[in-house]
């Protein structure tokens, strides 16, 4: 997507959105509700046709060649979008017919086999004869997953795939998504739940108000925001840690009330100086350890930077007196 803008009346859902989805990898679109994640997925398949910007999906523009794009895509939307009055089997058969898996020239037993194996892959084969209205949320999601990959799409798009699932089912779904990428599929997943993106994202796009704030692999983006080292420091009285926010070598500082401080320093050699300074100030430091930034850290850092709050700004800091800082330095 390059410079894509889409408006719903007066509301701008996508605002010059640009990002690239690498093939054979999991790309996670991160963003709060209303950031434009769902609209982006709809634009990728050509379900929506933004008027501005350029889109290439699997090498073609979905707005002009949607008929070529959509058969190669599988979509799992936030709601499972299943026909409740039909059985699981009939839901899959409907998709098979629309996507050309079933039809003239395809033997019935091959279609049956395809449906069964797709359902078995997601552990829903035993319930196929039952009406979908009686399925649990987890079963519906599994059926929607089976339907999305029934036609062996090149690109699979997930819109909040764990929405409404219990933790166990959500974990299972995320494992299935990881397996799909491992099997050579290109996956795009959008979520506002950072924990579920952690570990499966090969590529992240952080969205806000329809724009991409940052894109890249988690490692690349992390290095961009934390070129130095991140250290987690705990103290018996955590608020006493806030004084180091303005100390030399501290690039960024962040601490939630009552929690440990995440301190971004310009190099690992700075850590002993910080600890010595804190101890000299009478702060009882209880733990110091290197901290690997999580996707959550990244997400909030990116959003704060976009708001102009600066990179990893200090929250709830009580600046130390200037003379005291000087003496420590």
């Amino acid at each position, binding site marked *: 997507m390059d410079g894509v803008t889409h408006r719903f009346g007066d509301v701008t859902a996508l605002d010059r959105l640009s990002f690239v989805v690498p093939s054979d990898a999991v790309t996670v679109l991160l963003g709060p509700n209303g950031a434009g994640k769902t609209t982006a997925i709809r634009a990728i398949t050509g379900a*929506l046709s933004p*008027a*501005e910007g350029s889109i290439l999906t699997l090498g073609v523009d979905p707005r*002009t060649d949607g008929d070529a794009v959509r058969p190669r895509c599988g979509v799992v*939307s936030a709601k499972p979008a299943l026909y409740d009055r039909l059985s699981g089997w009939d839901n899959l058969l409907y998709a098979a017919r*629309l996507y050309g898996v079933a039809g003239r020239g395809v033997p019935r037993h091959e279609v049956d086999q395809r449906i069964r194996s797709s359902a078995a892959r997601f552990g829903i084969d035993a319930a196929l004869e039952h009406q979908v209205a009686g399925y649990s949320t987890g079963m519906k999601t599994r059926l929607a997953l089976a339907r999305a990959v029934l036609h062996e799409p090149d690109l699979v798009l997930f819109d909040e795939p764990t929405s409404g699932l219990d933790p166990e089912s959500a974990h299972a779904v995320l494992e299935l998504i990881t397996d799909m990428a491992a099997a050579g599929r290109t996956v795009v997943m959008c979520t506002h739940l950072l924990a579920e993106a952690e570990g499966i994202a090969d590529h992240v796009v952080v969205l806000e108000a329809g724009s991409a704030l940052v894109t890249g692999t988690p490692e690349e983006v992390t290095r961009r925001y934390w070129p130095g080292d991140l250290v987690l420091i705990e103290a018996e009285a955590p608020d006493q840690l806030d004084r180091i926010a303005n100390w030399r070598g501290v690039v960024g500082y962040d601490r939630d009330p009552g929690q440990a401080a995440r301190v971004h320093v310009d190099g690992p050699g700075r850590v002993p100086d910080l600890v010595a300074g804190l101890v000299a100030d009478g702060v009882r430091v209880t733990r110091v350890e290197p901290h690997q930034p999580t996707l959550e850290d990244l997400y909030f850092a990116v959003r704060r930077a976009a708001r102009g709050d600066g990179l990893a700004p200090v929250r709830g800091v009580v600046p130390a007196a200037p003379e005291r800082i000087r003496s420590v330095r």
Partner: protein
Amino acid sequence: MSIMSAAAAGEVRGRRSSRAGRMQWSRTWTVARTELRQLAQARDYWIPMAALGGIFFLVVPAILLLTITRVSQGDMIEKISTTLEMLPTTAQEQIHGVTQEGRIAYALAVFLFAPIAVVVPLTISTAVGAATLVGERERGTGEFLAHSPATAREIYVGKLVASLVPGYMTTIIGFGLYSLLVNLIAAGDVGRWFFPTTQWLALMLWVIPPFLAFTLSLVLRLSARVKSTAAAQQAAGLVSLPLIMVSYTQSTGALFGAGVSVWVVGAVAWVVAIASLTRGVRSVTRARLLGVADGV
């Protein structure tokens, strides 16, 4: 970063529209069949509709015809006979019967009840059509269709077929039973098995289908645009009730006026229906299936 101009985007969308013109009947039939399968599962839909058909095709005709042929006193028969004399001459010439009761039964069976063939399919089909597109949106399944390879035209025609079939099937089955009923009750007085008549067949095969198609083209357009199934049902009622009256009047007139009138009424109805159906395709868009189009 490249930005495609709105004009260029409009041009490429135009090209896409021309490509989208190619329709796969297999996908159209798949959409229709799935809709029908869901209807078959919906007892809350087909039980009232079966009751409606039963009342119009069996209960009311049976009561009236039995009253005329078996129960009525002479003065009542006289009054109805006088009323029949007010019918157009062409209609009176078509009335057969060896007894006065038989002539009345013939007139009622052919000229009064038969045009009900218009009412029943219109009522049943508009109930299906009104819910079909907005229902996809309400259930969230519009998202599945919007991302699917099915074109807007295939979806529209599929939904149209799915709306037509229940109404027309009800009419065919209903009139099969109706034919049996009226012949069993009144054939003795008429002098022969008299139903269906040639004109009635022309009505069924030539006049009713375009009225049905025209009404459904309007109802589907409404269904694509409104926000809820309830609103669609209300709007469909507003559209279909006057149409039912008009089509009833036209159908009755076609039956009364022997000869070419039934063909003329049918021909005009077909032209209007085809024009409306063609225009109605535009009402189905992927944005509307998703519920994000302006005005939805």
